[in-house]
């Protein structure tokens, strides 16, 4: 059989891979279980919220609040089939509520780029720095050339969400997500192929 490798493992976070094992382990209190979940999932949720809120303080608050809501939800003996999807959905709703109260305007990708440029501008080999910068610029440009939907699908997939979970979170059909990811991966691949050949 042709060895295809595991693409998912390239971008799937460790947290997501080990989640199911920890959730099903028995003999711990509810607090301990939620704490374990928090340790595994708070960064993916936080990163997702950073894209939504563009505010690290607000993203941190909403991340914590999402896990506290999960705790309360379970405490009331209400079922949660998929804690990861549940957390992302609650985080998304809280982010929407927060943004209605207080929105800040910033293009995250531009701001991200500025920061990475600043960080890299300190004492590296100039030639290497130039090559790195060109490569980073091409990466950035390729990702920015995607549509918002395609980019969001990639980010969520990279956080370990399955296609169905992304579709549920974004309230679109699974075929829409599949099509978005297909277009996105092909565009990125072709953009770099062209870049390499030029």
């Amino acid at each position: 059989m042709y060895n295809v490798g595991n693409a998912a493992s390239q971008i799937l976070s460790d947290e997501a891979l080990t989640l199911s094992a920890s959730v099903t382990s028995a003999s711990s209190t509810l607090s301990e279980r939620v704490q374990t979940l928090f340790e595994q999932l708070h960064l993916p949720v936080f990163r997702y919220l950073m894209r939504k809120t563009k505010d690290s303080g607000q993203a941190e608050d909403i991340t914590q609040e999402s896990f506290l809501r999960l705790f309360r939800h379970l405490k009331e003996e209400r079922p949660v089939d998929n804690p990861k999807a549940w957390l992302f959905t609650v985080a998304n709703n809280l982010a929407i509520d927060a943004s209605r109260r207080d929105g800040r305007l910033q293009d995250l990708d531009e701001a991200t780029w500025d920061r990475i440029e600043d960080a890299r501008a300190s004492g590296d080999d100039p030639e290497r720095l130039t090559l790195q910068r060109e490569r980073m610029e091409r990466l950035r440009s390729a990702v920015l050339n995607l549509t918002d939907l395609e980019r969001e699908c990639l980010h969520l997939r990279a956080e370990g969400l399955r296609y169905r979970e992304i579709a549920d979170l974004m309230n679109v059909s699974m075929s829409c997500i599949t099509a978005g990811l297909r277009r996105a991966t092909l565009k990125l691949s072709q953009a770099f192929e062209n870049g390499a050949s030029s």
Partner: protein
Amino acid sequence: MSTEILKPEFVGGQHPDDDQLLLALDRELSPGETAEVERHIGTCWDCRARYHEMHRGMLTFAEYRNKVYLPALESAPRGFRQFPSLLNKTASEGLGAGLLDSLRTRLGVLFSFDWVPVQAKWVTATAAIMMAVVFWTQVFDPASLSAGELLTKAAQSQNPRALHREVRQRVRVKTAKAETVREFQWATGGPIPNAKWGADPENWTAALTAEGFAQWHDSLSGPKDNLKKSAGRWTMKTTVAAGPIKEASIVIRDGDFHPAEQHILFSDDRTLDLEELSFEMVDQVPASATTAAPAIPPPPESPVAPQSQEGTVPPQINLDEAELELRYAMFTQHWDYDEDLQIARTADEVVVSGTASSADLARQMQTTLVGPPGVRLSVSMPGSAPSGSAPATAKGTPSGSSIPLLKDRLEGAFVSVDARRDFIDRCLAASDSALSHAWALKRLVERYTDADRRALRPESQIKLDEMLRGHLQQLAVSNSTLDGLLDLLAPSRPPREVTPDGWRPGVLALVDLVQQRDSLVAALVAGTQTNYSTAAASERFLAAHEAATRLARELLNRPGDGNAPK
């Protein structure tokens, strides 16, 4: 040797499509399905190349994420240090020791499944597998194309927006009593006059059209659709509880979405089978009236060709005309806006290069676009060669914009989740389509200045106009689909006026508007951004949408201005 002979068989003798390859690559298929795809790509170079192309895309994003995105992402200012105490505080709120113990016990039991007897575990496992099978076959639908989308594509295939074309279709019509061959004709660009179905198979007058099937389908209340893809053909079967027809199916080729068969079962159990024997589109432009689509007619010789030396020197090819014919052929086949292809000129030929979206399509292009002198095809199978870059699509949201979700309004307007998703899918598809046609327009406008246009033969100018108008019309159709979003938005102040000076600047302004709007649509209905107010996002969408709609209409109705279609 035919390449088809070398192809290993997948399901029903066909290759997995891109979506199946992606789903297998991303471990979204069942282990059995994944193994089947992997077995196929182990022996099929085309599919393996495509598979690796998607893999490269994933790795590119992973590199971007790891080297650009994550390192620059701000960390949580308080490092989540408060969380343990917040959790403890929440845990102790109104919770007695007894309840805590109870919860602990219940959750432990719940997660351990110790309470489930062995037999019940088997039953549960079996039920889970059955649910997975039902989900896979009925809900997820590996075909990944809705019935509506399939019919729309098929209708476009039979009745392209191209003007001045006449379709001739020969159909074998078979009933229990007789078998005949009938011919149908219609002009493209408008409704097909003989599409509507009757109720009597013995006096059947309708052509074999997706439009007719769609008309019947739309007239039903509560039809049940079943969509299958097998051996390179889609089969859509619709059953209905009441009416003169109780079941009908249409078979559509996968490569070009062309309807090939239709089968109807009437309520009195009479049957009608239609099979297409031939289908051709004939150009109605006088100068090339005998040319049948989709083959490219040979380009005319250059007016400066040395006519006196016939037989000794090959006639010089007019590359402008060859290129125009090539573009027109791609336009009539819908390959000029949704495929990643580039047209370039060398000193002595016009070259189409890029990668087709599927191996089948690449082969179809090889057949359709090759032939006339002066045109060279360098279209590769997916993944096997460098291709032209895709047009730059919406580049994020302009800084300073304000974009929320319309989650609450969508939920208010559509009670059913399915209806809501259908609506969202339609909006996203319409926006995507508008963007594709806008880019196709832009490419044409940038390629053909007014002077370039005047240098073409009159009939070629007509074809150029037809392409411009065709893309504008399709863009206008997508605009009207997006009108559905207006109902969800609060009234806003009048949109800004966009009145570019001239047709060409108008098209470029339209492309910008459509691009902005695409980003807003995704944010409004699919939640790609949430950080902004509903009012501001709505206002921006309305402004972009209404300006785009008005501008598209204005451009369509602006004759005699620069290189505007006449």
